[in-house]
């Protein structure tokens, strides 16, 4: 079983377009970026990633149903969840983890700020923004959900209750990218950006962090980060960034052997 369909990619390919997830990985650790995207090393999914994937798929099913003017019963949602769980990792059937994911979803459906009859503007939609006029590559991405009127939503599963101020900073690259993408594709400014955190506690909870639309400063920061990404890749600047985050890095062994 592998973590996805990553395969080695050339530097030219990786700088022809850029996404928030690639930028974020590059910001976290350039060597991790190198292992993941340039070499395309594949690793088994952690249980946390597996739960997150199945939860995302189920939320997509729920949102798509409303988008199609249909309603999804709890039974249908549970079936969708089990299907996503099985598809994502047939050999990784830890029962407790599976229950954890479903409890998160039950909590979400019960406490979600989204009403059952609210029709989304977009669900899991692929978007791109041509940044050539800024001398930068095309920005691409997938937005989980757009609620009316122009509220960008990103779903996150985590093991800890998020602190709003920290979350705003930690997700800055991603939310700024979504703002740029949304504006490019609609010609309108987003109303706000909501992060829906499904927190895996003994008693799961939902925390919604509502952020203001991306500011000029955020956009400038994003463009500078993209510029740094392109320059870094052109220089093959793939150095490690040792720190606390290494404890959970899937490329720990490769990193220790790096010279």
């Amino acid at each position, binding site marked *: 079983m592998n973590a996805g369909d990553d395969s080695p990619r050339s530097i030219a390919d990786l700088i022809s377009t850029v*996404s928030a997830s690639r930028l974020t*990985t590059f910001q976290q650790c350039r060597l991790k970026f190198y292992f993941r995207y340039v070499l395309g090393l594949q690793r088994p999914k952690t249980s946390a990633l597996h739960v997150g994937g199945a939860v995302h798929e189920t939320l997509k099913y729920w949102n798509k149903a409303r988008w199609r003017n249909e309603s999804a019963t709890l039974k249908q949602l549970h079936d969708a969840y089990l299907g996503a769980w099985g598809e994502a990792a047939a050999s990784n059937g830890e029962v407790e983890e599976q229950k954890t994911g479903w409890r998160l979803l039950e909590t979400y459906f019960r406490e979600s700020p989204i009403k059952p009859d609210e029709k989304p*503007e977009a669900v899991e939609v692929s978007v791109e923004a041509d940044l050539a*006029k800024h001398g930068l590559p095309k920005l691409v991405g997938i937005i989980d959900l757009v609620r009316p009127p122009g509220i960008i939503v990103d779903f996150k599963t985590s093991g800890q209750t998020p602190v709003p101020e920290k979350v705003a900073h930690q997700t800055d690259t991603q939310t700024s990218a979504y703002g740029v993408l949304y504006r490019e594709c609609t010609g309108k400014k987003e109303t706000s950006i909501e992060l829906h955190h499904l927190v895996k506690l003994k008693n799961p909870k939902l925390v919604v962090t509502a952020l203001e639309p991306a500011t*000029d400063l955020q*956009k400038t920061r994003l463009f500078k980060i993209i510029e740094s990404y392109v320059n870094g890749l052109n220089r093959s600047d793939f150095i490690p960034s040792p720190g606390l985050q290494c404890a959970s890095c899937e490329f720990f062994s490769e990193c220790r052997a790096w010279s």
Partner: protein
Amino acid sequence: MAIVFEAAYSKKLGLPNFSSHSYVVSIRTELTDINQVQEESRKLYKMLQEAVDKEIQAVGFMPDATSYGMKDGHEQQQRNGSAGGDDWQCTDKQKGLILRIVEENNLDKNYVEDLAKELFGHGVKSLNRLSASGLIDELFDRFPRKDKGNGQRGKYQRREQSRR
């Protein structure tokens, strides 16, 4: 014989939001003695630099980074999407993809038009790029390509979906 002496001074300064502006002043004069070059160069450099520095402080027009280029770009996309006088608001690429799905599946164009109206309240040609992307996803869900399974969208989508 007169000696023609030319001097130019230019300065380029960065501005917020990836902007910059520059200004150059040049001068041509005649010298009677080549020994005057060094002294004349010193004087002209100082004079031209002062002139440039004085003028370049006026920043002039500065675009609003939240909207500059976006409206134009959006309208440009609309123009790019035009074909035979019919105005598509999505990109040429999206338009081509929608038409290809229609053709490959022998779909009635009215079917796609009705689907767009049902999902977005607008006809296909009126869909912006966000909605057009959603329509393409829906069409691929309903009419998956036999040769490529469900992997019909751009390769970045498949990669990024596995790396949230």
